[in-house]
């Protein structure tokens, strides 16, 4: 139906989903920042904490 003519074969290394990569990178960054905030608030912000 015409679509076949628009198909293009690319090699393995030509596949370059840069948008997906950026999305995952942003997600990764959010995850790391949230972890650090949680970790700091839980353990290092100076309130009383269990030590034994």
């Amino acid at each position: 139906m015409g679509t076949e003519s628009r198909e293009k074969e690319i090699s393995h290394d030509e596949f370059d989903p840069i948008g997906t990569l950026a999305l995952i990178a942003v997600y990764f960054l959010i995850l790391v920042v949230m972890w650090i905030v949680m970790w700091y608030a839980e353990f290092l912000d100076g309130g009383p904490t269990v030590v034994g």
Partner: protein
Amino acid sequence: MEIHKYEKAWLVGALVLIFFFIGTIAYVSAVVGVDMVDDSGGALDVDEVSEDERFADPRVEQVGEDEYEVYMIAQQFIFRPGTHDTVDVPENSEVTFYVTSIDVIHGFQLVGTNVNTMVIPGQVAEITVEFDEPGEHGIICNEYCGDAHADMEGLLVVHPEDEWEEMQGGDG
């Protein structure tokens, strides 16, 4: 097998993330000294709590220069000491709480902190806490223990050092 460069990056990134997570937790455990609540408090016969020398007279006791022990009974619907009288400790002290229940399961938590343990009849909950700054901490029961559970609360006061010395002087 051919692995795409983005997949390689993802594999490495995920591994780094795991080591980062473990590393941060290992750091607070090994360097900062943060610990978990464990079963080191041991067990005791719930009918003989009043004969146990620690709990016959629930109290705050000084056991070292900056070390204190709090022997506390949780019961429907008070903490002894804590509810009718405050738990008083000085700043820059290391306080070990021994808490047991004489009726049902209670909770013991300093509001907004991770000083939080279940208080189980027949068991002694033992947790050690460092108080570096003066202030007041509410104690709440966070396990439903009956009709007046919502009113079960107490107060812990961390006194500034000069105030603490005055209090000690006043007591004789």
